């Protein structure tokens, strides 16, 4: 059977066809999980975020332009959901007087085909350092960095996704890269 295009599935979903929306959910869940994990650095948060993204997308289907790319549109929603979540986390941490720790699930979240133990240790160390570096970013900086670095979005696309001017989007990327580089300097120095 020929695969239904995103545009056709969106059109049916807009008419109330839940199964058509299900096709979109099944098709885009993996990519969204990756994005959500990059944005949050936490497996459970990423899973919750994926569901929230689809729920928000469904509520906003009426705003989707049929000429647009559905995946790009989902990324936009994902970025904003992630920013909301990260802000909530930061604000909760500040209220509780807790310094937000680096999420502890890195060792347990190594891929199934992990390398031997010593290499795994090295990888997990990098993982912790990288997450710690990303953790030092503000929600907006992290979203901009993930979209630029991992999703390869242009400054123009990022400014559109985050509802920022292009100069603000650039500044968010600059600042994020600057912080990440500074934060990883010690790892690089120790490897020399």
């Amino acid at each position, binding site marked *: 059977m020929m695969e239904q295009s995103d545009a056709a599935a969106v059109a049916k979903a807009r*008419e*109330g066809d*839940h199964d058509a929306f*299900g096709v979109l*959910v*099944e*098709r885009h*869940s*993996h990519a969204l999980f*990756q994005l959500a*994990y*990059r944005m949050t650095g936490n*497996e459970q948060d990423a899973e919750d975020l994926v*569901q929230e993204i*689809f*729920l928000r997308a*469904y*509520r906003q289907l*009426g*705003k*989707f*332009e049929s*000429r647009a790319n559905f995946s790009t549109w989902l990324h936009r929603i994902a970025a904003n959901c992630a*920013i909301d979540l990260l*802000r909530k986390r*930061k*604000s909760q941490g500040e209220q509780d007087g807790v310094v937000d720790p680096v999420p502890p*699930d890195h060792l347990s*979240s190594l*891929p*199934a085909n992990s390398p031997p133990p010593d290499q795994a240790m090295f990888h997990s160390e*990098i*993982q912790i350092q*990288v*997450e710690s*570096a990303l953790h030092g970013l*503000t*929600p*907006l*900086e992290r979203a901009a960095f993930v979209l*630029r*670095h991992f999703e390869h979005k242009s*400054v123009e696309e990022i400014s*559109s996704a985050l*509802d*920022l*001017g292009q100069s*603000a989007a*650039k*500044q968010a*990327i*600059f*600042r994020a*890269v*600057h912080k*990440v*580089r500074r934060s*990883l*300097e010690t790892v*690089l120095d120790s490897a020399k």
Partner: protein
Amino acid sequence: MKHLSEEQIILHHYSEPEDGERIARHLEDCPDCRARYQALQQALALVDRSAIPHRGENYGSEVWRQVRPRLPKREQSSGPLSTLWGLAARSAAWRVPRWALVGGLGVLLLAAFFGGRLWPRSTPVSPRQIATSAHPVSREARERVLLREIGEHLERSQLALIELINSQTNGMVDISLERSLAEQLVVVNRLYRQTAARLGDSGTANLLEDLERRLVEIANSPARLSPAEFADFRRRLDTEEMLFRIKVVSSQMRARELESARAVPGTHS
């Protein structure tokens, strides 16, 4: 020879087409800049080595099982409101900044809302008139959209202030991002404030006036401040107090929005 800025090196790394050839030539000729470029590449290569937890083949179906029971009923997309949303969605294609269009729509809706709320009707409206009205958007629906618009504006302002609070304070503090955000927000904020004041909602107008003063100050500040200047700047802005007020008003607005949604049976927000 003038060295490349960190921004130029970052843009070059991500192949953003800004003077790419000149920068590439400079990197060939200048060992200092080349070393900085390589250090950046190494740091970002480390980021690429971080792993993502694996999800099985059935992950999509699992997500759908979780999401399906939570889907709200779909409302048919017709009428003036969906037309407005359609305009907002198309704004990207027109290269009109979304915040500008949304701000404009917000002001129109604000006027419609406050107008409907504050100005007395000269003649009673009969049920028949309501039924045959050429304006099928209910007052509750207008109120919900309006509250959402102002709420979003406040959230964006809150985000700019939080970014400011979280700025790095070791060495010179770069607040160019917050300046750009504030410049955008001032325009929309001014429109909301003027409309609210004209229509007599002094509570909203006061909050927006205080917010605007801070946004203008951020927009007009130097892009880089010393730690002492930054501390003084933050004290002057009293950011924490502003954030607290925004939080209070936003939560009141969410409550009003929920109340308004409950007033329309079968409506889901």
